[in-house]
């Protein structure tokens, strides 16, 4: 596997992070910027202090610094990767490229650096190294560090650049610093379809085994398929060949949904696999660690390999929920306290997590989320994830078992200043609606959803959840019964063979032997089809069940926002009356002004929340509809697969019996 390269780099490079540093600092030292060398180190220590990640509307300076820091966490890992790719002499030069791209008004300064080399460098680079060019923005954190001075000076420009870019590129609220945006050479919008190939060694080996055990006399339907293209054949093959009964059916599904809905947005291809679960830890704290291998153009084109545990996946989920309000995030597997180390359980969980990542990666919005990228690539996970959590205020680690339980971060909602105020008072809930205001609200106000769409959606989800649960249980029962039947058939066959051994006559012994054989074959066919059913239909139902949890989460977000609106409005009204009272009384002008200030703050807060509430409505509406369509299509497809496989296995059984009848009776 080519992933070994990654290992090699981090193993053989003594200090992968330092090298570019030193080189760069040397280079820029030559320019006469002595302060450069100290700055990078200082910058590294500052991350802990920053807490606010407001949206682009607010404090520009802080934003950028944060953004700056955000990228700097991501980059130490990748710089090692990128560095080894480019030849040494172009190390500092490649580092200089992104800088140029970012700070366009610094061209003159940097032009003095190595302007003539850059174009040449690029020319030479195009032939040999494609990847560094595209991926440079991502991995330029470290190299940029000596030049953060430019950042400070140009923050005003940059942020203003960022804002419009961000606003135009996507309707998202909080993308501070998507490094993908600031490219000198914009990526050509490609119509790539996100096809996810599933490299699951376990399932593949299973298929191999099944192929070997396949009943040979079968599958004449193949004749019809010859005329088609290979892609179509791939899509068709799960239906007509017996051996290939596995998840490749996912490919047609994602293809069709992708192609139908995304012609405008770009979707990068992602290849993600979760493999190799290993038990880590001592007796007291044991857990299972999985290796996540991902490869994509968004990740610089080279496969990355990181170790993650289940908790991290849930962190990612919470983080994504926080980053994209209203968007339905593909769900993680459920928590489980006991039985965490059983083989089947681990395998099931692994598969579910893999699917979760693949779904996230196939979503054009989510795949570019920096937390997602961080998850896939970060080597200093514990550190960086904590930092991210702090910055975003998402409380991702406070992860309750129910995935529809959400936390609305005040930071994100209100902006850092206001959020500080709110949090000092203990949060929106306590500040306004709590008992300490006393008179007006004995209980928290009830949020009534004005839009019928959401009420309907909630109801629908509840009903569907019930039904799917029943269905899943029934399917599981059928599956276990079938496996029981298989073992009994086995025993039956054995006893038949015992009778055959008595050798009453040749004919009878043959008859009995063949009869026993037939039963064994039937049993194999039964067990195979049962396994396939659970792999296709079972997985779909399970995924849908968990996705319903995600949908509920999204609806909860809206509810909570609405609830906050009520609280703040109440507060506002109270303050208004207070103000009116005080303003009538001309004696306390100071108090009046202070109350007026507070009033202003509250009004702006209220407006902010209202705006959020409305935006989230739009997002939810669109997403829920899309989710519905997806679910239905997925479900129907799987029903069809189930039906077709049932038909095929029936034909197989009939074939077996008929042959036996013809030969022996």
């Amino acid at each position, binding site marked *: 596997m080519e992933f070994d390269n990654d290992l090699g780099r981090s193993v053989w490079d003594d200090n992968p992070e330092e090298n570019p540093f030193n080189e760069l600092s040397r280079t820029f030292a030559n320019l006469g910027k002595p302060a450069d060398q100290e700055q990078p180190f200082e910058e590294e220590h500052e991350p802990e202090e920053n807490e606010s990640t407001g949206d682009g509307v607010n404090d520009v300076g802080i934003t950028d610094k944060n953004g700056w820091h955000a990228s700097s966490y991501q980059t130490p890992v990748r710089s090692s990767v990128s560095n080894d790719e480019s030849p040494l002499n172009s190390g500092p030069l490649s580092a200089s490229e992104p800088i140029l791209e970012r700070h366009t008004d610094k061209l003159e300064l940097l032009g003095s650096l190595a302007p003539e080399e850059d174009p040449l460098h690029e020319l030479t680079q195009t032939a040999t190294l494609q990847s560094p060019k595209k991926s440079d923005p991502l991995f330029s954190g470290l190299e940029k560090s000596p030049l953060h001075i430019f950042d400070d000076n140009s923050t005003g420009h940059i942020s203003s650049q960022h804002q419009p870019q961000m606003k135009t590129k996507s309707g998202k609220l909080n993308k501070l610093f998507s490094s993908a945006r600031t490219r000198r050479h914009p990526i050509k919008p490609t119509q790539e379809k996100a096809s996810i190939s599933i490299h699951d060694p376990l399932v593949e080996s299973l298929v191999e085994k099944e192929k070997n055990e396949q009943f040979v006399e079968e599958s004449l339907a193949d004749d019809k398929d010859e005329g*088609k293209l290979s892609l179509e054949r791939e899509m068709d093959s799960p239906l007509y060949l017996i051996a290939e009964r596995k998840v490749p059916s996912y490919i047609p599904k994602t293809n069709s949904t992708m192609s139908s809905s995304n012609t405008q947005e770009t979707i990068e291809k992602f290849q993600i696999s979760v493999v190799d679960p290993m038990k880590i830890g001592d007796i007291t704290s044991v857990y299972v660690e999985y290796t996540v291998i991902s490869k994509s153009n968004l990740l610089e084109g080279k496969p990355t390999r990181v170790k993650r545990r289940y908790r991290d996946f849930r962190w990612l989920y919470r983080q994504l929920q926080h980053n994209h309000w209203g968007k339905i995030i593909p769900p993680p597997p459920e928590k489980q306290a006991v039985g965490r180390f059983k083989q089947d359980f681990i395998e099931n969980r692994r598969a579910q997590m893999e699917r979760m990542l693949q779904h996230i990666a196939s979503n054009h919005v989510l795949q570019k989320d920096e937390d997602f990228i961080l998850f896939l690539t970060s080597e200093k996970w514990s550190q960086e994830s904590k930092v991210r959590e702090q910055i975003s205020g998402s409380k991702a680690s406070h992860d309750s078992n129910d995935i529809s339980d959400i936390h609305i971060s005040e930071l994100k909602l209100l902006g850092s200043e206001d959020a500080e105020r709110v949090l000092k008072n203990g949060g929106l809930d306590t500040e306004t609606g709590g008992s300490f205001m006393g008179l007006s609200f004995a209980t928290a106000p009830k949020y009534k959803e004005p839009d019928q769409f959401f009420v309907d959606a909630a109801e629908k989800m509840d009903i569907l959840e019930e039904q799917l649960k029943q269905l899943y249980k029934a399917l599981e029962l059928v599956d276990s019964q079938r496996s029981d039947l298989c073992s009994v058939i086995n025993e039956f066959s054995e006893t038949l063979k015992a009778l055959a051994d008595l050798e009453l006559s040749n004919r009878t012994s043959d008859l009995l032997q063949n009869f026993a054989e037939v039963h064994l074959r039937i049993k194999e066919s039964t067990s195979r089809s049962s396994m396939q059913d659970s792999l296709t239909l079972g997985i779909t139902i399970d995924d849908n069940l968990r996705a319903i949890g995600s949908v509920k989460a999204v609806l909860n977000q809206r509810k909570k926002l609405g609830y906050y609106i009520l609280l703040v409005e109440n507060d506002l009204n109270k303050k208004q009356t207070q103000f009116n009272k005080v303003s009538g009384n001309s004696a306390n002008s100071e108090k009046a002004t202070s109350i007026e200030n507070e009033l202003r703050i509250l009004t702006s807060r209220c407006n902010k929340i209202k705006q959020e509430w409305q935006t989230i409505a739009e997002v939810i509406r669109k997403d829920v509809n899309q989710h519905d369509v997806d679910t239905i299509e997925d479900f129907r497809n799987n029903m069809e697969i189930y*039906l077709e496989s049932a038909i095929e296995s029936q034909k197989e059984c009939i074939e077996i019996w008929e042959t036996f009848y013809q030969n022996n*009776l």
Partner: protein
Amino acid sequence: MTSSVPYDPYDDMDNNPFAEPVEPLAVPETINSITRGDQEQQPDTERNNKEHSSHKDNDSESTNTTNQQENGNDSAVNDIPIDELLPERKNNKYNLFVQVTGIERAGSLTNKKENPSIKFDCTTNLPTFRKPKHKKLKKTYTEFYKLFKYLNAAIPETFVPSLPNSFTSYGINNEEDAIKTAANFQSWFNRITSDPLIIRSDEVAIFIESDFNTYTPLKKVSSISGLKRKTLKQLSPPYDETLALAEFRPLVKSIYHTTQEIKAKLLKMATVRRQLSQEVNQFGQAFQPLSLDNSDLYHKFGRVITAIGDIESIVANLDMATLFDPLESIEHDSYIIKEALTNRHFVMRELLQAQQTSRQRQENARKLRAKRDINPLKVDESIRQLKESTKNEHDLTIKLKRITANMLIERERWLVYLQETLAQAIKEFVLRKIEYDRKKLSLLERIRLTVRTADGKGGLSRLGRSSLPTISTLSSSQSYSGDSWTGDKTRTPHLIGGIVTTEFDNAVFNPNNSHGETNTSQPQSSRQSENIEQVGLSARQAASLLGDGTF
């Protein structure tokens, strides 16, 4: 007299170490050819047979004549031609025909189940019967059982066929059960009437001529049973010269045990299958209310799956009926044969003992003769005893020979019968399986089109094609011209009418029908299919019929 001929052990044994056991293909002429596998003896014994038969009184039942063989090579025991030992078999003059007309179940529930009445007619020319024709006879199962027990004890030479079960696995409420039970009794009667020893028994005549529900055997016969039997069985069996029978008993014993195991597993399989059908039913039920979108796709789909579950439960029942019941009859048969062979061992033991006593008495007589003082009382006594014991021994010898001879014949017949029964049972089993698998397939295919067209693009199977597959291509893959998925076009499904449109279709695809319809159709199904089997003809069959009929 057995004792006057010197015992020559080397003549008895077949010294040839490479001799293959020869399976006799037909009912042997004499016992010699069976036991020795000695071809050269046959012409001799045949000649002897012809000589002796001319002197015989063919109708006598007694076997007291003992004609000595001129052929001195024969072993001491097997020197009587079979015609003498078993004169019943010699001529086929007497026969008994029984025709079962029906089964009647009446009375309390247990009575219905375990004691049905069998109605039959009977024709015969046996002297033991008062009338040659008997019509509309009716006997209860308990009467049959009493007759059976008597015959088993009274006729040690033969293997009495085991009584069929009073009910089949179809369940007594099923029409199929009545037919099957009647058929079972018919075949039992056939076996009885083909055994000349049984039909000549007086009790059979008494049984048939007795009034309804009044029969009890007149004669009392007891065989060794209970503790004595068990202890005797513990001893190793006495030396048995007839190799075939000596090997037969262990074979029968293992058949008995193996069929018991198979039955147990089959039962287990059937119960698991029934449970599976329940689960599948539930799965189908859970599918029906799905409200993912507003189509009734899920409803129909759920119904189809429920119907599949129903078929599964029928299959479970049929499994039992087609295979379990015949296995049970084989099991009973093998038990009876095993015990009959054990009884033969007991007779052999008795014979040995009798031989011993007669030897002893002979010794006594000789001693007396050698003594000087002659006590007339003692002499008389010893002579009397000697005569008695030799007569006893002789009787037992004849009896044993008779038993052995008959058993050898019966053994052959039974083995053939066993294999035929097995083959028949498996054939039934497979045919039913195929029938119901085909029904499942056609059900599934019916809903295929619905599922495919539910998706606007025509479903997964359509991807890549520019046009939707036409309805004709989606019709049933089983047809008169053979199955569409196999290269063997000559194999037509046997029950076309009942398969392509099954009796389940109405319940499944007609939305007005309640779900209860499928349940009621179950007991009718097999009957219906049989009807259809008789009524429906494939084109091929029709053509062949036409072709045959013109001459």
